[in-house]
């Protein structure tokens, strides 16, 4: 136990540390001795060298997803990519129709962008997932109209880690000639992405969920069949006019390197991470009244989102101060609302309040997982000993039959 460094980081879906190999490449692009030039400078070697580094990174990103480098547009992150994809496509194709379809469990970067488009006069349908978090293709088909111009469905969910069937959704969207956008912020390096096969038109990426730096991302914009976007950021006409702004060479180089490592190592890495996740799950699910949120099979390897019934999430996080995890509990959010993702699954509020998201990554060790299991089991026991709901459950009282005084 002595060699475990506390707190243990189990929040890899929030962000990842930069891989040291990536940081080394980035550091080469900063100072006077390094590759600091503006990639848009055409008149000297500083610019040419920087441009070459950006081109290399573009190829590295394209290689991970089997795309053409000319289909990659650099952005500041997945939020900007989502905004550019959704607003850009909606604005460009608004003469064709004004209906957009997305899902209630999408990231806020998609949901709030759609809300903005509603204010501009677009109609948006927010689909419910099934209880396991997955989208039923029939629900999507039923929601589609002749006015539908855009479908936006995420690849892997940030909270519960479930992987949507973007292959099937893409086939349907292509058949109906509807633009299909996928937020893939959480899936690079975790799920195979082959854009030669997938009928995806726009795909959002970021670097910092895959051991690259924060503040950089990319949008894939399909060339064949060609997808057009209205720019959201205007200026020097960078990125073929789709996203102006001086390219941040060090960030872009970092993203490229991170994605290359992801491509080379994802098979072995995912196997190792899945083993750790299962070790964690097996260590916790022998307790009573423990529920996994979201489908366990169609799920990225590193995610375990689990609810401990009759224990409140924030107090559990307090007891787990040696762990860096996140909770769907209301008390950990500024709004005092429990996770909208868990609510969309139809989970009752109690289970949403008592949920913890563990996300495992490249630097997690088996010793850390074993220690985590011990800590969590002890904390849940302590809090259940404190919980009047646990006593009632043990006495066989149905909590749904109690008339609670809501406040």
């Amino acid at each position, binding site marked *: 136990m002595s060699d475990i460094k506390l707190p243990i980081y189990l929040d890899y879906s929030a962000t990842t540390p930069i891989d040291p190999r990536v940081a080394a490449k980035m550091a080469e692009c900063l100072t006077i001795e390094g590759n600091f030039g503006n990639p848009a400078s055409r008149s000297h070697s500083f610019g040419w060298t920087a441009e070459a580094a950006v081109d290399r990174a573009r190829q590295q990103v394209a290689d991970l997803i089997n795309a053409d480098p000319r289909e990659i547009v650099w952005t500041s992150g997945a939020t900007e990519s989502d905004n550019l994809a959704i607003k850009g496509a909606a604005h460009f194709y608004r003469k064709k129709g004004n209906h957009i379809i997305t899902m209630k469990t999408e990231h806020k970067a998609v949901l709030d962008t759609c809300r903005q488009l509603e204010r501009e006069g677009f109609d948006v349908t927010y689909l419910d997932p099934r209880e396991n978090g997955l989208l039923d293709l029939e629900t999507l088909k039923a929601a589609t109209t002749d006015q539908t111009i855009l479908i936006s469905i995420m690849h892997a969910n940030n909270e519960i880690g479930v992987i949507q069937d973007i292959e099937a959704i893409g086939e349907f969207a292509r058949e109906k000639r509807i633009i299909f956008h996928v937020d893939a912020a959480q899936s690079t390096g975790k799920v195979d992405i082959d854009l030669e096969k997938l009928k995806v038109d726009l795909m959002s990426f970021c670097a910092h969920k895959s051991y690259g730096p924060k503040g950089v991302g990319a949008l894939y914009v399909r060339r064949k069949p060609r997808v057009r976007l209205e720019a959201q950021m205007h200026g020097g006409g960078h990125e073929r006019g789709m996203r102006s702004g001086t390219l941040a060479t060090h960030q872009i180089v970092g993203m490229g390197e991170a994605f290359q490592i992801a491509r080379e190592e994802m098979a072995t890495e995912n196997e190792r991470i899945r083993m750790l996740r299962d070790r964690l799950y097996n260590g916790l699910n022998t307790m009573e009244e423990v529920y996994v949120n979201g489908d366990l099979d169609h799920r990225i390897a590193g995610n375990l989102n689990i609810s401990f019934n009759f224990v409140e999430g*924030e*107090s559990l996080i307090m007891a787990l101060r040696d762990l860096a995890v996140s909770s769907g509990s209301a*008390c950990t959010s500024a709004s005092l609302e429990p996770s909208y993702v868990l609510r969309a699954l139809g989970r009752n*509020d109690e289970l949403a*309040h008592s949920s913890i998201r563990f996300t495992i990554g490249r630097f997690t060790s088996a010793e850390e997982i074993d220690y985590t299991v011990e800590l969590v089991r002890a904390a849940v026991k302590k809090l259940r000993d404190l919980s*009047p709901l646990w006593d009632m459950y043990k006495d066989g009282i149905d909590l749904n039959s109690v008339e*609670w*005084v809501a406040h």
Partner: protein
Amino acid sequence: MAYSEKVLDHYENPRNVGVLEDDRSVGTGMVGAPACGDVMKLQIKVNGDGIIEDAKFKTYGCGSAIASSSLVTEWVKGKSLDEAAEIKNTQIAEELALPPVKIHCSVLAEDAIAAAIDNYRNKNQ
């Protein structure tokens, strides 16, 4: 969230956790709702002189809710029912230095005292 040392102390070492055997001398108050994320159960044992001689609690909720209920079990002991009823949520919030978003936890603790007293009085009319 950064909690005060007093909240952390009550959370780490909650006072008077438990259940009192139900009889005429015991008043039980349960307030809150699971869907809201907190439920407090407070019990008081009242002696022949009308003084609260023991108090126990169990709470489902965040750290502030647990600390608020632990604190009031300490405060009500040795008080008469009327004195206990005068404990205000503002005193609880001040003692524990609760942040604004956690004030509702102290309100819930005040409600729990009132509910326990009501229950005792109803039993002993």
